[in-house]
């Protein structure tokens, strides 16, 4: 039996707009998503914004009904047996909200614990254990109101809530989004520990490829509502074995990443992506076919030079999950 099974999930959001003339808008969020996650596996769902990651998470968390298809958690159907599913899953959505602002961290956890049927010494011990484990005790999380928490503390409290009832399956939607590197590392470490030592199954969504590569046993790449690649990180990397990843760092340019991307795409026909790294810096990542890397680097540098963008560094690097992602989605993040 798989810990998580998603079979041919479809979902279309229907929204109605306008007062007199009602316009119906249909957005196909999922177009047949299927994947399976083994017990004690850390599974990553990777995709650009609007790819359908959160829709999958909501269906698995019993917060949304699919139009078609089936999803099961530890063999329980999310549509027909939602109460059973809710007992064995721990869910974490956005870290910024989701708690009572005028309650302390301890009071918030106690509320959610009571709601899940925990009480007495068992609940107290569990809150104590989790606050300690996530470093919230040391940061004064017991007595601080939630509104006084830093973003890192909020994210930790969010994970603590998901773990409160010791669930078998954790479903986490971008748990490290917006966190400082130290907090993000602490949470990543904890998730791996939970899977390796406590046999928890973890499904994590992210568009942070570094994070997914670091902790996931298996990864699915989702784009425009479809799974476009599925496998271990090394299996996925083999998809770019015929390409050479090239990184070019450029600086002092007045264009946006999107404008630059459009300009380069007009000149060279390869998969590429541009990340803005602040203060006018940009990192251009190109997947050049083997044997053509030199020619392509010249072409890119030439284009950038003509539009006034200065190059700081250009180098060939080891392939990462990001390159797979760039190749499969043609670079849109």
């Amino acid at each position: 039996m798989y810990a998580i099974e998603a079979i041919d999930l479809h979902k279309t959001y229907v929204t109605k707009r306008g007062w007199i003339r009602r316009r119906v808008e249909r957005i196909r969020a999922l177009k047949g998503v299927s994947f399976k996650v083994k017990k004690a596996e850390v599974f990553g769902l990777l995709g650009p914004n609007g790819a359908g990651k959160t829709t999958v998470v909501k269906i698995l968390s019993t917060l949304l009904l699919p139009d078609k298809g089936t999803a099961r958690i530890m063999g329980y159907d999310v549509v027909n047996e939602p109460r059973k599913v809710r007992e064995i899953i721990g869910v974490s959505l956005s870290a910024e909200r989701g708690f009572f602002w005028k309650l302390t961290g301890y009071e918030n956890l106690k509320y959610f614990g009571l709601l899940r049927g925990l009480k007495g010494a068992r609940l107290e011990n569990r809150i104590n254990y989790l606050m300690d484990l996530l470093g919230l005790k040391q940061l004064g999380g017991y007595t601080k109101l939630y509104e006084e928490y830093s973003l890192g503390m909020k994210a930790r409290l969010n994970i603590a809530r998901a773990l409160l009832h010791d669930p078998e399956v954790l479903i986490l939607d971008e748990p490290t989004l917006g966190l400082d590197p130290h907090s993000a590392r602490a949470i990543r470490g904890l998730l791996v520990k939970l899977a390796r030592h406590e046999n928890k199954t973890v499904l994590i969504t992210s568009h942070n490829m570094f994070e997914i590569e670091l902790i996931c046993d298996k990864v699915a790449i989702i784009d425009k509502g479809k799974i476009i690649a599925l496998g271990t990180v090394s299996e996925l990397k083999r998809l770019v074995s015929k390409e050479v990843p090239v990184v070019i760092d450029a600086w002092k340019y007045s264009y946006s990443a999107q404008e630059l991307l459009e300009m380069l795409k007009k000149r060279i026909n390869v998969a590429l992506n541009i990340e803005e790294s602040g203060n006018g810096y940009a990192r251009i990542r190109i997947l050049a076919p083997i044997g053509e890397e030199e020619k392509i680097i010249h072409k890119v540098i030439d284009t950038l030079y003509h539009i006034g963008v200065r190059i700081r560094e250009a180098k060939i690097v080891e392939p990462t999950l990001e390159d797979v992602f760039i190749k499969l989605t043609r670079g849109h993040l």
Partner: protein
Amino acid sequence: MNRLESCLSVIRAELYAYISWLKNNKSLAFFMVLWPYLTAVFLLGLGTLLGSLEEYKVRMNIANPAFYIIASGGIMVSSISIIDSVVGIALRHRWLGTLPYVVSSPPGFTLTMMLGPIPGSMISSFIALSSILPAAIYFEGLLGFIKIFIVLLIIYLAMLPLIGLSIIIAGLTLIIGEEANIAAFISPFMLLLSGVFYPQTLLPEVLRLMSTIIPLSYVVNAVKLLATYHIPPFNIFMTIMGVIIGLTVIYNTLSIPGVIAIEKRVLRHGIHG
């Protein structure tokens, strides 16, 4: 977790959250105590606007205006809190972002939206009526204490018809997906219909008919009885209780098909934090 355990979990959790919230908002707790007196002054001002206190007694058909005005102040505050809790639960959870976590816990959407408003409503009614207790004892002695206790029990009883309604309102709030707190619009109208401001006999026929299906009307009538007699006529009192219980059965029976349909619609639409 079976259904009974789920119900108890919701009550326990909401009770704990409400008490903690009050503990951390001490100024709010202070104003909750003061509020019934402010509304009593408002009612007194409204009642004597067109004449003396004697005329007010005649118009309202009550023997003891002091007790009536104070108790009505308590009822008004309780009613506003109850309507706010019942109508606003889904919006409150959505604003806080707690809605997805509440719905993905074992009690689920229906039980949480149905039972969630009860603890807060009970506590706020208890605070409102406890705060007027000294005044009631001052005017009527031990009998005032007993009468306030009876009013509190009637208010608790009058909350029962609202359980089914609360889930339908919560569901509609989420389906419509707009951010209006309709409680703010409903409260004054409900209070007007209940007869707490001035007698229902002065209302137009249509509004008087509407007032018969509002549980709050019966609470106000019960208080009038308590303010008029030392010991209210047993049969009239029991009739009022009977109507409230009848409304509970009718409202909740009518709500059941709506509850099931609304839960499905809300989940098809999706729970957004």
